């Protein structure tokens, strides 16, 4: 796979060969500084770090997943996937996109783990089933639990991408038949950062890698292990439709006038007000658009256990347990108030019919 003259060529020459000018490269570095919430003065430092970086190896593990994060990764264009793969990082193992198969593929993973102990980056995609000895996900005869313990345990840093690798995601949704868990709940004591989302946004992955190359450390995280630069602020507070929310202009039905005019999707169950990610700012697919921009509410995929906690996706409030699917909190509440009022009326009537009991009591006094 090695390009023969790789060592002779400088980083910039290699970029130039691919038609990327230094100006484009500096634009990318500035964008990365902005994504990481760093001052613009950091752009040259990032550029320097990338130019001098020694192409750390990267292994990409897939367990109970849909390869959605891989899709997201392959759609990276800044730098294009080719640049990430060949210049920034040396992707030595990635089941979906690698050329070798079978034993040869497993050998590349073993080589990295053995020869570059503590120097490589691991990306984990997908949940890790823990029930019944982890039999529900095995690769090359080894369970996901074993693989993740060995590979993540020897890595310089682990990046858990997507909701599944973070807290189990979909496979861990109730009733969680395979006992699926995220990396943080399976291996402890590793250098780990989580990029939840369904899938993660590749710009955030690039940001984490750039931060790692520039500062030699992972970016600061919140208490859920997510980088603050990407998950520090609420979607609702940066939403382009926020003005419609404050004004009181809501989509009431799919395809109604408000929907056509791009009003707020709050009434359609948008979970922007409770979800923390930078989607409104960096957007998706090269900042082409993002869910709310295209007229669909946020489903809160970067929130903990989103498949259980953020559903129903098209309602503001969750179901009230024990009251069936159609009961909403308001219907139950209204019923409660009605029962109370009916009770009061019944009490008043009963008292009148019963012949003014208390007054009789008073006469006796």
């Amino acid at each position, binding site marked *: 796979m090695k390009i023969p003259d790789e060592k002779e060529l400088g980083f910039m020459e290699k970029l130039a060969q691919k038609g990327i000018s230094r100006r484009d490269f500096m634009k990318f570095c500035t964008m990365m500084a902005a994504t990481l919430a760093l001052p613009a003065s950091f752009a040259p430092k990032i550029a320097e770090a990338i130019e001098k970086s020694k192409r750390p190896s990267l292994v990409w593990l897939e367990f109970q997943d849909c390869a959605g994060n891989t899709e997201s990764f392959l759609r990276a264009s800044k730098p294009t996937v080719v640049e990430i793969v060949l210049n920034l990082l040396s992707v030595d193992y990635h089941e979906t996109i690698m050329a070798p198969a079978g034993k040869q593929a497993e050998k590349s993973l073993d080589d990295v783990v053995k020869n570059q102990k503590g120097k490589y980056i691991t990306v984990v995609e997908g949940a890790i089933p823990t029930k019944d000895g982890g039999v529900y996900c095995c690769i090359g005869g080894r369970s996901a639990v074993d693989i993740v313990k060995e590979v993540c345990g020897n890595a310089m840093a682990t990046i858990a991408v997507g909701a599944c690798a973070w807290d189990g995601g979909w496979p861990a949704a109730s009733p969680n038949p395979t006992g699926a868990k995220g990396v943080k709940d399976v291996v402890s004591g590793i250098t780990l950062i989580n990029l939840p989302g369904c899938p993660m946004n590749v710009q955030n992955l690039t940001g984490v890698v750039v931060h790692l190359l520039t500062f030699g450390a992972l970016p600061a995280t919140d*208490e859920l292990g997510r980088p603050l630069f990407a998950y*520090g602020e*609420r979607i*609702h*507070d940066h939403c382009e439709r926020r*003005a*419609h*929310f*404050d*004004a*009181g*202009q*809501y989509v*009431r039905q799919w395809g109604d006038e*408000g929907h056509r005019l791009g009003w707020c999707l*709050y*009434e359609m169950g948008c979970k922007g*007000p*409770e979800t923390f990610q930078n989607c409104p700012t960096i957007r998706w697919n090269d900042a082409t658009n993002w869910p709310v921009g295209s007229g669909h509410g946020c489903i809160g995929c970067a*929130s*903990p*256990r989103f498949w259980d*906690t*953020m559903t129903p996706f098209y309602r*503001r*409030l*969750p179901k*009230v347990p024990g009251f069936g699917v159609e009961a909403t*909190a*308001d219907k*139950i*509440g*209204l019923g*409660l*108030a009605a*029962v*109370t*009022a009916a*009770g*009061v009326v019944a*009490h*008043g009537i*009963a*008292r009148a019919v*019963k012949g003014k*009991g*208390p*007054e*009789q*009591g*008073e006469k006796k*006094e």
Partner: protein
Amino acid sequence: MQQQRSRVYVWEFPVRFTHWINLLCILALSITGFYIGNPFIQAYSAKQYIMGWIRFIHFVAAYAFLMSFLIRIYWGFMGNKYANWRAFNPFSAKKIRDLADITMFYLLLKKEPPPAVKKEGHTACAIYVYLGLFILFVIEILTGFALYSQSHYGVFWKLMGGWLLSVINVQNIRLYHHLIMWFLIAFAILHVYIGWFLDKTEKNGLMGSIFSGYKFVTGKELE
């Protein structure tokens, strides 16, 4: 035989004051809160600021309610024996017996008003209901600040209720915050009706007492 009735000063000013502030706040919070959960007014122009103002009122009323709640707790230590926290001690065999008597009376299963409703302060039934109410208030305040802390970053908001977010998922916090509103509305209906019912049966000026502070009790009940 007509018994002599005395006029007793039961509800001190802070008790009455917080009562009415609570009423105003709960009214404002319920109406605005219902709108926030289910925005039933559609703005005709983007220049309007309906949700903005509704949320503003909700937050201001929430602060007023919290202050009122804190004043009432303070008065539980400083006020007279009817307002004192000791009167709210639920672990009392007498209160539990009285509660049974009063409940029978309220359900019209007993004609005679039990002596327990002739007391100057809260009845045993009221004690238990208000204790439950205080718990609902605490839940409303905590869940409210937990939701508020999502858009207000920092340690202060974490302490005020943001810590709840790591215990219960945010959508359930929203649900409880919403459901308790209905419990408070149901409480208000019962509260006014029972007050009026006791006022009529006991002729103790109960409904007026929350304005004036004075209740009328028969002589023998006075300590």
